[in-house]
Structure formats: structure tokens, C-alpha cells
């Protein structure tokens, strides 16, 4: 994999910049199951995905972030509260809000090229313009040599780039990414961070990125939403004012980044402890004693 050369290989330009678009969630709640088995996953949660910014949502694992994505994407609807996009309520899935799922959702029976062309073909837009765009994106994600390969023949990082291309060809107004780089090895992960950050910096479209990884969150985010443990809601918002373009090498020595990291870790640690103790008195006492000793 070679992400640094991608920038120099540009056969022609295509613009993916979209008009401003903002998603606002107001007092949303969601629970699953019924009666005594009901489980409240989202509780009176409000947040804004601001236009033309990269909003990262971070929270302890299993805190209901994926549920929020299901709601924003429109695959499910909240029990109460509203989610609007540019003022209009979200009623179902649509190509204006595309999701990159946790595990690769590339169709295994289609080649890279066919995967990228899926959206246009599904909408009956299998025309010269789409083909041109597909070619452009293949080059942009550096997969021209792998156009006729099936997803399983690609490495984890290539799969993620193919999936980015498959989403981008539909020119979504908002891109939603659900822990997209989980499971990649550290090296590919950092390459993907830089690659994805560069993609974002090019067009500055509205992006919503969910993760459990603090380094990833701080490196990528314009705004960071910190979520509570289950049932989830937004605990605090941090504006990450580290200048762009960002590079992995710079961020390690950046004092501001380190301050933010400490702040985020303190907040997340509290939430993770709640999650760990799960209401058990013994576990809570243990964690209390442990944090006093450590602190």
C-alpha cells in the first residue's frame, strides 16, 4: 500500500464538494425490546453535526453509538425526539447520508469496479459520466490495478479505500463512518487516518465519524462529541483547534493535542468505569480504590 503517491496521481479533477448540510438531533430516545426486557440505549440525547466539519463521536464501546448511526442514517427511527437534516425530518435511508460500516460491507460477489459502480447502476445512472467518475475515484484511492479483484483479494486498508470510493461516487452531503478503521493493523490505520484526513481537507464536506480510539478522534476531529455510558447521551463537546493539514508526525509533539487527550481521557475514564462496574457495588468500590491509588 502506498498512500503518499496517490496525491500525485490525478488524471483529472472532480469535485465532491457539497452545499452546506447540518444534522440536528434533539432529545432523541431509543430503546429495544419490550416490557421487563426493554433496554434503554439512547436517553434524551441532543447533538449537532455541524455543516462542513468533521464531527467525531467518541464513547466507551457498547455505549449505543451504532444505534445513533442507525437513527441518523434512517434505518430506524427514534422512540421520541427529532432528527433533522437541513431542517427537514429524516424519514428513511437516502444517498444524501451514506454510511461506512464497521466491518467491510463491500459486496463480496462484485469486483472493486462493480462495487464502486453499484450506486449509480442501482439508480439507473449507468452513463458515461458515472463511468468517468468511477475511473477517477479508482485512481484517487489507488486501486486501478485492483479494479477486477474481488474484495477478499484486497488488504484491509484497500477494502476501506474501495468502500470510501463506493460511497463518494454518490456524492453524499453527509458521510457517516462507523469505526471504519477498526481491525486494521496500526501501520495501515495511521496511513488511513492521514489518507482520510487529506480526503476530508480537500472538500470539507460534512463528516460524522464514530470511534472508540482517542488518538484517532483527536487526529481527525474538528469537533469532538464525548458520549456517556448506556443509555447514551452527549456529555460534552470539545472543539479541536489544531490547524490543518494534520500529519501524524506533528500531532505527537503538539502540546494542544496532548492537553485535549488528557481532558478526553479523564472524561472517558469515568464513563468506562461506570460501564465496567455495571451497577455492582463491589466493582464500584474496587474501581474507586483503584482510581484513588492511581490518581
Amino acid at each position, binding site marked *: 500500500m502506498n498512500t503518499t503517491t496517490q496525491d500525485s496521481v490525478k488524471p483529472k479533477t472532480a469535485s465532491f464538494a457539497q452545499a452546506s448540510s447540518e444534522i440536528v438531533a434533539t432529545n432523541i430516545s431509543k430503546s429495544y425490546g419490550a416490557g421487563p426486557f426493554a433496554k434503554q440505549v439512547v436517553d434524551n440525547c441532543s447533538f449537532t453535526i455541524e455543516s462542513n466539519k468533521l464531527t467525531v463521536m467518541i464513547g466507551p464501546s457498547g455505549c449505543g453509538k451504532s444505534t445513533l448511526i442507525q437513527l441518523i442514517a434512517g434505518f430506524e427511527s427514534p422512540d421520541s425526539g427529532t432528527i433533522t437534516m437541513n431542517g427537514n425530518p429524516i424519514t428513511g435511508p437516502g444517498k444524501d447520508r*451514506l454510511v461506512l460500516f464497521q466491518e467491510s*460491507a463491500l459486496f463480496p460477489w462484485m469486483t472493486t469496479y462493480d462495487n464502486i459502480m453499484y450506486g449509480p447502476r442501482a439508480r439507473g445512472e449507468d452513463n458515461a459520466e458515472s463511468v468517468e467518475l468511477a475511473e477517477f475515484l479508482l485512481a484517487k484511492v489507488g486501486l486501478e490495478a485492483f479494479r477486477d479483484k474481488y474484495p477478499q483479494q484486497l488488504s484491509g486498508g484497500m477494502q476501506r479505500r474501495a468502500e470510501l470510493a463506493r460511497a463518494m461516487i454518490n456524492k453524499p452531503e453527509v458521510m457517516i463512518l462507523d469505526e471504519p478503521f477498526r481491525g486494521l493493523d496500526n501501520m495501515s490505520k495511521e496511513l488511513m487516518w492521514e489518507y482520510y484526513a487529506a480526503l476530508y481537507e480537500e472538500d470539507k464536506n460534512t463528516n460524522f465519524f464514530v470511534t472508540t480510539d482517542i488518538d484517532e478522534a483527536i487526529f481527525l476531529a474538528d469537533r469532538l462529541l464525548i458520549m456517556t455510558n448506556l443509555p447514551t447521551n452527549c456529555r460534552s463537546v470539545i472543539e479541536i483547534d489544531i490547524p490543518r493539514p494534520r500529519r501524524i508526525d506533528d500531532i505527537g509533539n503538539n502540546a494542544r493535542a496532548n492537553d485535549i487527550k488528557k481532558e478526553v481521557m479523564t472524561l472517558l475514564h469515568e464513563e468506562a468505569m461506570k460501564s465496567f462496574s455495571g451497577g455492582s457495588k463491589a466493582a464500584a468500590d474496587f474501581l474507586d480504590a483503584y482510581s484513588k491509588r492511581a490518581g
Partner: protein
Amino acid sequence: MSVSNFSDKLFSKAAMRGIFAIVVFVLIWEVGARSEQWFGYRFPFIGLVPPPTDVFVSWGGLIADPSYWQSWYMSFLRVFGGFAAAMVIGIPMGLLMAVNKASYGIIFPSFEVLRPIPPLAWVPASIIFWPTQELSIAFVTFLGAFYTIVINVLGGAKSINKQFLQAAQSMGASQWDIFRRIVLPATLPSIVVGSAVGMGITWEVVVAAEMISGGGSSGGGAGGGLGFFIWSSYVGGSYEQIIVGMISIGIAGYISSELLRQLGGLLTPWLKTR
């Protein structure tokens, strides 16, 4: 496949091992079958089986006999007829139950009650309610493959990764497009597996059905299929021919499975890349 490629395959280690195993097997069989003649002591079990040399001599005589090939033809016809019907009815039925809750509710309970009934238990009933012997054998053969195909298709279509459907949906795909380009290819591997298993059961069933029903419409003669061929050899006391019939079925089943594997491989090229 080029010639050198083919000869590479023929003389590969795996092929050599297979050939070696068959040769050893036939040798042990020959020695065992001739034990009384050669050592004056009859080995248990195997001492009663006709020796392979006699079987091959008998086979050699049959190769020129059109009625032997007629048996092959009849069994193949029944197997592929029943199997094709099972695919044509079973695949849409499995898919329908997977994508439509109402159909599932209506069909599945009856299906699950009928499924445990062994196809061979249907032989007497089907002889009664089908107008010809031929149709009753074909029906029983059909049942052999049908249940397996439906269950596999249903299971395969139901276990599709939800994210594939959501991804397609959010890119603006219609229900029909999702069915055609997501559900169908995602289910293909299960269809292939279900068909391969179903094909095996079909051969088991057709042979037994031929034995029980006396070889179908052309019954009585040697044109009644390989199952009837074995049965009439048994009745006629030709033990060598029983073995010929058994080996013939083994070869016929192998050819059918191999055809299916090749076809399945062509239909699911992405699985080869694993």
C-alpha cells in the same frame, strides 16, 4: 486446460496417492475373494464376495450390451428430472419464504411436518396417486433433493449480512434491484451447497425407488435403471453384476457431483479467491 497442465494434474502427488489407494484396495479384495481357492481358508465376509477380476470380466461383457447403458440412461434421466424439478420449485420457494414473512408463516409449518418423512416412505403412496410408475419414481427422486435445497436457500437468504442490505438501500437501490443484485448472489453459495447435497440424496433415492417399484414403466426388462439392474442381478443370481451395478452408481454419482461442482464454481467465481 492445456495438455501439459492436464498431465501435470494426472501425475500429481494427489492423483498418484488416489491411484495407489485404489490399486491396493483392489488387490486386497482379489486376495480376500480368492482366499478359499488359494489358501484353502475362506476369509470372513470378503471371502463371499466375487473377486474383482470376475467383476471386470462381467463388466467387459456388459459394455457392449445396450440394455446396460439403457439402465444408466434411465437412472440419469430420473435423477436429473427430479433434481431439476426440485431446483425449479425449491429455489424460488426458499427465496420467497426468506423475503416474505406471510409466505414463511403459511408454508414453513407444513414444510417442516413433511420434511422428516423419508422420501422412500412416499414410494407406496406415490405409486398409488401418480398415473405412471415413471412419474412416481421421479416424484420420490424430486423429494430427495427438494427439502435440502429449500432449507439451504432459506438459511442462506436469511443469513445475509444486514449491512449489505442497508448499504444498497442507502445508495438508492429499489427492492427489485436489492433482490436481484444483493439477495440472489448472496444466496448463490447456499444454493450450490444445497444442490450438491441434494444431488447425493437423489442418487440414494432413485436406486431404492427403482428397486421397490420394479424399474418403472419399462420394468421387467434391463432398461429399468441402475437400481433395478442391481435388483434383477440379485434375483437372477449374478453376483458379479451386482458389484458392477454398485460401482456404476458410484461413478454416476461422482460424475453428477463433479458437474455440479464445476457449474457452481462458474456461478460463484468470488469464492475461488479465498
